[in-house]
């Protein structure tokens, strides 16, 4: 990863975003509603060595909505997600072609610093991965490295409240993050990701290792988050996608985006037969 210090060149401040208008996007625009777009991919391809993991993905992720990515195992959902904040840079042999536009700026341009990008696009991983530090230090870590150290305790508390964890841990902030249960750890990781106030939160199967109670807490949380944040979430759980998302993208084996649209439409009346088969469990 390069250590360039160039700030990612995004003119728009948070909140005022570019309007999508039909004349500007020729390629891949199958949405006609006027909607604010946070992230758009154009002909996005990723190779691992010789193998192409995702093919020509064109997609527009709406702002302050929940977008779900579903599809069978190995179809490239995680790969796609990692392109958005350039976490693929960490993987030896991964090669990206095409564009990922974050408010119109291609994040793969040479002058984009992935470090700065990741400060605006946070990520929550499939497996809870708290640091072997105290709960407070876990949540504060992103704030500290991003230099947002004023009123640190308040920010930590806010993030823990947003992540619906505050009531459970407020009296043990100095205890180790590793001493929490799996579900609590995952909510801690979510608190850690939202504490520095990113614009977009990427979640890779955040509830897959959790029991139904913890899962429903996280689902409620995602619902709350979508008021302030753009959420992109990978899930294997069809009901979960239907419950929490506004848009759904269905990937199928081979790394193709088969269908992308309003969640309701995808689940009730998909255009593609393959998607219908997948959703109804006949395939995948």
């Amino acid at each position, binding site marked *: 990863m390069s250590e360039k210090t160039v700030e990612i060149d995004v003119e728009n401040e948070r909140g005022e975003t570019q309007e999508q208008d039909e004349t500007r996007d020729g390629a891949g625009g199958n949405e006609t509603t006027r909607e604010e777009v946070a992230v758009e991919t154009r002909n996005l391809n990723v190779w691992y060595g010789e193998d192409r993991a995702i093919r020509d993905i064109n997609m527009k992720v709406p702002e302050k909505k929940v977008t779900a990515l579903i599809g069978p195992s190995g179809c490239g959902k995680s790969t796609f997600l990692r392109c958005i904040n350039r976490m693929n840079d960490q993987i030896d042999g991964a090669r990206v072609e095409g564009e990922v536009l974050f408010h119109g700026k291609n994040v793969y341009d040479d002058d984009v610093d992935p470090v700065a990008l990741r400060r605006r696009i946070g990520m929550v991983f499939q497996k809870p*991965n708290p640091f072997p530090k105290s709960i407070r230090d876990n949540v504060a870590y992103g704030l500290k490295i991003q230099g947002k150290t004023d009123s640190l305790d308040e920010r930590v508390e806010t993030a823990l409240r947003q992540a619906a964890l505050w009531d459970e841990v407020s009296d043990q902030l100095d205890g180790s993050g590793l001493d929490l249960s799996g579900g609590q750890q995952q909510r801690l990781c979510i608190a850690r990701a939202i504490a*520095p106030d990113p614009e977009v939160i990427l979640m890779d199967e955040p509830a897959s290792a959790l029991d139904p109670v913890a899962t429903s807490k996280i689902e409620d949380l995602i619902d709350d988050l979508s008021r302030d944040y753009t959420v992109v979430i990978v899930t294997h759980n069809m009901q979960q996608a239907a419950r929490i998302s506004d848009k759904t993208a269905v990937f199928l084996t081979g790394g193709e985006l088969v269908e992308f649209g309003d969640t309701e439409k995808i689940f009730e009346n998909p255009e593609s037969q393959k998607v219908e088969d997948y959703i109804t469990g006949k395939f995948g």
Partner: protein
Amino acid sequence: MSTGKKDETEAALTGEVARGDRRKQYVVTRVLQGCAAVTIATTLAIFAVLIDNAFSFFYGQRLHEAILGATLESRVGVVEFLTGTRWAPYHAFPDYGVLPLLNGTLLITVGAAFISIPIGTATAIYLSEYASERVRGVLKPTLEVLAGIPTIVYGFFAISFITPVFIRPVFETLGFSVSFYNAFAGMVVVGIMTIPMVSSISEDAMSAVPDDLRNAAYGLGATKQEVSTQVVLPASISGILASYILAVSRAIGETMAVTLAAGHRSQMTLNPFVEIQTMTAYMVQMARGEAAMGTVEYQSLFAVGLLLFVITLSMNLLNDWVKRRYREVYR
């Protein structure tokens, strides 16, 4: 459950196969236990011989002879040995104060640690966090070669290269007087020699830190340097400290290179540019000298050896303590 099924199950669990397996298990366990016992027995034997002989350095008789009733004559006092500041076994008025030798050993060890710890740690961080697969493929075997060079070769390297080509020209222009044998050369070679120890053990510890933790930090917008120092280092601190302790133990026990590089003049000094003598170098000198077995000069070998043994043993205990105290907290 039917009786047929029950019999069948019983036969499978207690029959010939199960019994054969258990016999094999038993034999394997015993063989492994035997091998472990050999190493323990060797250690104990060395310790016993050291104590037995060191006793005669202090009291004129070996410990087992003393136990069998031989009369003791006091030769060298234990306190005199441990606190004396003059070590002169060959002198007309001999003295057996071990501090000058200890001084020599510690001087070399501390100097070497100042070289091996920073360079070794930096190398480990580079290998584990920064280097590409290709660079790692070149650097790791190189370090292994460095670790495999016989120490006598390092000694020659010191007297034929480090002292004349590097230390003397540099420090003599700065106004120091540098003798042919000097502690500094010993520090440098022992330092270089122990770099691979620090780097490879530390790198193993760093590589064992799960990528999940790195990704967590990168995902929050941490730079590579922040990930290395704030996430990877703290998570692998126990292994890193262990590598330091091992490198220090190795430096304490290092013999051939310091014998050649630093010389044979036992003295109390912190000046790295003069000739000194370490405990190990003294032992080399005495073991190949003319002193007859049983004489106090000769038996001093065992007293020094015992002290060396005790020091390295305490380093090992320290290592265990550090491992328990700072064990990796991630799972």
